[in-house]
């Protein structure tokens, strides 16, 4: 699929995960003990042999840039093609992303210069594992202008993409390219392809929590990140996990760099987390480099990165309303 330019549009992502998306885009939210949501879409593109990917970002792009680097971990550190990050030129004027098309218009030169003649346009990072090649073959065989795989995911001829953006850049009735295509569908040869794989929607904290807890069924998690192909993420040099004489871990995912001296049950522990002696963590999600003090008790919580829980602190919440603690907080 080297004639396809992959485009991941994060421009009008919403802050749908409250505290977790205050300072980062949804695409950058940590997931499954080692991934970020964007890893799925990006890996799917690379696994489908797309060698050139552009990511359109909104203002909260720092953590995403830090995670992606030069694309090396997804095999996108290339002279010919590779990863291209396009930060927003026009700030998002309101939550409905009214200037999404204007932002695409500002980057038009990039698209015009790209040598690929087809685009795979994905609006918003999606948690799924998919090979796009069969869809692309169908798109080409039918000589379609646009082939829609899923809401927010479509193949589109580059010439038509550019035409649409130029024509509708000032159109205030339209919030996104996806919406625009819905409107102009009669004017073009548009096909749809029925996509059967699961696409995991994460539109609320509750969704995020439930989806995460499901990953503790390891067969399910393994399937999600390896079939049909492996999902890649940024590699780090953290040491293997240390367990001491007081460790008690049951039914949990533990990432490297962590030191577990306490109890962990039914939880996801990201990299570099320190769980002190006597601490108890149950049904929770603990992001990178948190520190859980001695004898603290956590149940049904989500801790963003670098949170410090003081000794003896108790944070107990309900499974259908998990408590979220913002990044860097000291409790």
């Amino acid at each position: 699929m080297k004639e396809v330019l992959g485009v991941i549009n994060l421009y009008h992502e919403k802050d749908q995960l409250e505290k977790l998306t205050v300072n980062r885009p949804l695409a950058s939210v940590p997931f499954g003990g080692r991934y970020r949501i964007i890893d799925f879409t990006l890996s799917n593109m690379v696994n489908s042999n797309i060698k050139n990917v552009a990511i359109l970002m909104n203002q909260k792009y720092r953590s995403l840039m830090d995670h992606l680097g030069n694309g090396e971990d997804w095999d996108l550190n290339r002279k010919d093609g590779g990863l291209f990050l396009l930060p927003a030129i026009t700030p998002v004027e309101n939550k409905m992303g009214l200037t999404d098309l204007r932002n695409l218009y500002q980057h038009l030169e990039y698209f015009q210069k790209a040598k690929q003649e087809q685009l795979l346009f994905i609006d918003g990072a999606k948690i799924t594992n998919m090979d796009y090649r069969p869809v692309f073959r169908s798109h080409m065989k039918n000589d379609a202008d646009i082939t829609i795989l899923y809401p927010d995911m479509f193949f589109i001829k580059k010439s038509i993409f550019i035409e649409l953006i130029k024509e509708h850049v000032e159109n205030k009735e339209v919030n996104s390219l996806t919406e625009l295509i819905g409107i102009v569908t009669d004017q073009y040869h548009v096909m749809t392809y029925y996509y059967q794989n699961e696409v995991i929607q994460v539109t609320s904290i509750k969704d995020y929590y439930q989806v995460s807890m499901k990953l503790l069924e390891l067969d399910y998690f393994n399937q999600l990140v390896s079939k049909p192909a492996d999902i890649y993420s940024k590699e780090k040099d953290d040491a293997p996990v240390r367990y001491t004489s007081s460790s008690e871990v049951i039914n949990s995912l533990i990432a490297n760099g962590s030191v577990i001296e306490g109890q962990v049950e039914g939880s996801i522990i990201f990299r570099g987390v320190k769980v002190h002696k006597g601490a108890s963590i149950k049904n929770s999600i603990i992001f990178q480099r948190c520190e859980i003090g001695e004898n603290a008790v956590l149940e049904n919580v989500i801790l963003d990165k670098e949170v410090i829980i003081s000794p003896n602190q108790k944070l107990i919440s309900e499974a259908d309303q998990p408590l979220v603690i913002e990044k860097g907080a000291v409790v």
Partner: protein
Amino acid sequence: MVAMLLAGGEGKRLGSLTYNLAKPAVPFGGKYRIIDFTLSNCTNSGIDTVGVLTQYQPLLLNSHIGNGSPWDLNRKGGGVFILPPFVEKNGGTWYKGTANAIFQNLTFLEHFNPKYVLVISGDHIYTMNYEKMLEFHQENKSDVTIAAIEVPWKEASRFGILNTDSKHQIIEFEEKPIEPKNNLASMGIYIFNYELLKEYLILDEANPKSSKDFGKDVLPKMLMDGLRLNAYPFDGYWKDVGTIESLWEANMDMLEENPPINLNDHQWRIRSVANNQLPQFISKTARIKNSIINEGCYITGEIEHSVLFSGVNVGNNSYIKDSVIMPNARIGENVVIHKAIIGENIIIEDGSFISGLHDEVTIINEKSLKYKSIIPDRKARAGVER
């Protein structure tokens, strides 16, 4: 300063672990290969040009090192260079000794023309700031500095011993002395002034009686000629992992409450090659104490005081104690493993029992064999305490 890392060793005493693998590529510490420590020491010491001299079974070592980027050694005008023996117009030979190996690569060194050359090997586990050693070398206006460590007196006969004066200047070498006069052992880590190194390597190469070794030939000659050799005292952890026993011991050392090397030390990171693994999964029936476990593992059994590398599966009701399980080994159900090293990709069938007869370390590394009971004796089984 350019570093020359001698990584050609076979490590015969590691038995089957080095049949297809050079010693520096042997897995260690749950995640690393032995050479990762020396390479990381170079990067952390600010050395960005490293020649790695390979010879024995280099394939895996070469692919592990690659272009050096895991250690930040993929650099313009420097970086890591793999230096195997090579043929030129006048022929070529395998490396005949530590000194000959460097001699054969003088062209490489000439290209960089450094002021100093650091000679190290890739078969010890230790952390050291070579920059500080260089400062010591410069302060003492030495011609050569040799890093040295005090060893227990009863072990001194196994080492190259350095007899020094009160100012750390070396006055005598004793190679494996029966009655050592000192317990300061050479670590095989040298800093040379490049011009002098060149001169003496050429001299040594021309000497038919020389065994082409630094410790036995070049350094004693330099001393005899009145050059200034100093011992740089080192007192951290330094472990030669050249035997099955010592490799096992070094892994066990990492399990101490305050391990001799803190693998989580962000100020001195030990870097290695990662391979896209899931975080480890610890199941409902697992019990883990005092262990180090790497990503990609799936644990349903009991692990006590052991080191598990990536992708290891441990089945239900199995019990692993005081052991080292290398990458992607699969341990079945109802298995008992005590004081053993299980090699990469080895499958241990359900119900197996593995333990040494006399408290020695058992090594299981033959893929063609399926392991059942190593010790069928029931008394021995009862001796493994939970």
